């Protein structure tokens, strides 16, 4: 790929999805985009970039999606889910006792493992949540992963990665070699296409946001704005959970880390807008 084409592609990705494409990622571009070119009958990456330069919107979306990293698994890193169950949820049960409503946002839901893990966690707590309305919203920039998330169908490999066997048996049905999430869990989660770089006020307010393993792909300025805008979707006592390699420190003063709870952040009331 010519340096000019690479730069054009890097600028486009940064603008459209926030992805920072480092100069040494040529191999990644090839392995992700050659199949896109082939699928569209384009002869190589130069032809593909030529199409992008002509502002072919369908092609642009396909390229943006193909460049996202969608890896996910159930109860990823364990700790955030344990923190949610043992620390965040008890607080919500007390503070939301009048409205009896909890809204959770999985802001980079990928193929659905994160929002479904939350749905399972809430289903396991159903004794404490009787009469409560629990809404889980999963969003992602990629239409393709959302189609998979909505289907809720996982390979044996995916179904085993992080998912305790007792939960697999309880909340999945076997279909051939694959495992499908139970309808009652599926019904707890709504999926919507959403770009974190664009306005998301239409989603409404959330009590808790899981925004994990997506900010790592953005530059500092983009991380800051996204975090600030997430803060605006949260009430004064809202909470945020980030991925293991992510933080708010040095990026925004609208959140602050909760002491001794790795990955958990609370809104900084003094700074709330």
């Amino acid at each position, binding site marked *: 790929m010519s340096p000019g084409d690479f730069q054009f592609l890097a600028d486009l990705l940064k603008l459209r999805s926030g992805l920072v494409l480092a100069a040494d990622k040529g191999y990644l571009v090839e392995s992700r985009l050659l199949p896109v070119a082939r699928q569209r009958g384009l002869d190589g990456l130069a032809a593909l970039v030529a199409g992008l330069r002509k502002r072919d919107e369908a092609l642009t979306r396909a390229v943006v999606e193909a460049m996202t990293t969608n890896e996910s698994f159930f109860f990823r890193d364990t700790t955030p889910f344990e923190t949610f169950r043992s620390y965040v949820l008890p607080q919500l049960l007390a503070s939301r006792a009048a409205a009896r409503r909890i809204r959770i946002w999985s802001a980079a839901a990928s193929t659905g493992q994160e929002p479904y893990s939350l749905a399972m966690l809430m289903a396991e707590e159903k004794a404490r949540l009787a009469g409560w309305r629990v809404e889980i919203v999963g969003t992602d920039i990629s239409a393709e992963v959302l189609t998979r998330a909505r289907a809720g169908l996982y390979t044996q490999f995916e179904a085993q990665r*992080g998912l305790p066997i007792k939960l697999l048996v309880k909340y999945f049905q*076997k279909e051939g070699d694959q495992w499908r999430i139970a309808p009652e869990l599926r019904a707890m989660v709504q999926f919507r296409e959403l770009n974190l770089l664009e306005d998301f006020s239409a989603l409404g307010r959330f009590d808790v946001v899981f925004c994990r393993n997506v900010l790592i792909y953005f530059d500092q300025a983009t991380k800051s704005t996204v975090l600030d805008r997430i803060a605006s979707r949260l009430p004064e006592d809202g909470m945020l959970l980030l991925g293991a390699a992510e933080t708010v420190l040095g990026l925004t003063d609208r959140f602050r880390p909760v002491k001794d709870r790795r990955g958990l952040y609370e809104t900084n009331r003094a700074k709330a807008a």
Partner: protein
Amino acid sequence: MTDCLVVDDSRVIRKVARRILEGLGFAVSEAGDGSEALAECGRHMPGLVLLDWNMPVMNGLEFLQQLRASNGGDRPIVVFCTTENDLDHIQAALQAGADEYIMKPFDSEIIEAKLQSVGLL
């Protein structure tokens, strides 16, 4: 350091499992079938048993039932690791006292995730 007994009639699988488990910091011993494994547990009760289902002499389920009924046999964490991947087998394993269940083929990521979920990592 937790010690782990790998029970499988395939020497190759035992070798693969040993490599993964040693990489995770376990001290590994091996048995080729359920009765060998019971004898081994009688000598020394491990913290973790990685257990195949279909084996000659004594299969994994029978081993598990006898282990759980034996003195101190309620202590080890038992993780099935088998090609049997239907609900009936999984339910039977859980009923017999299995803590986790891995459907072959497995890799180091799956083993690591499963051991994390039973609190061993």
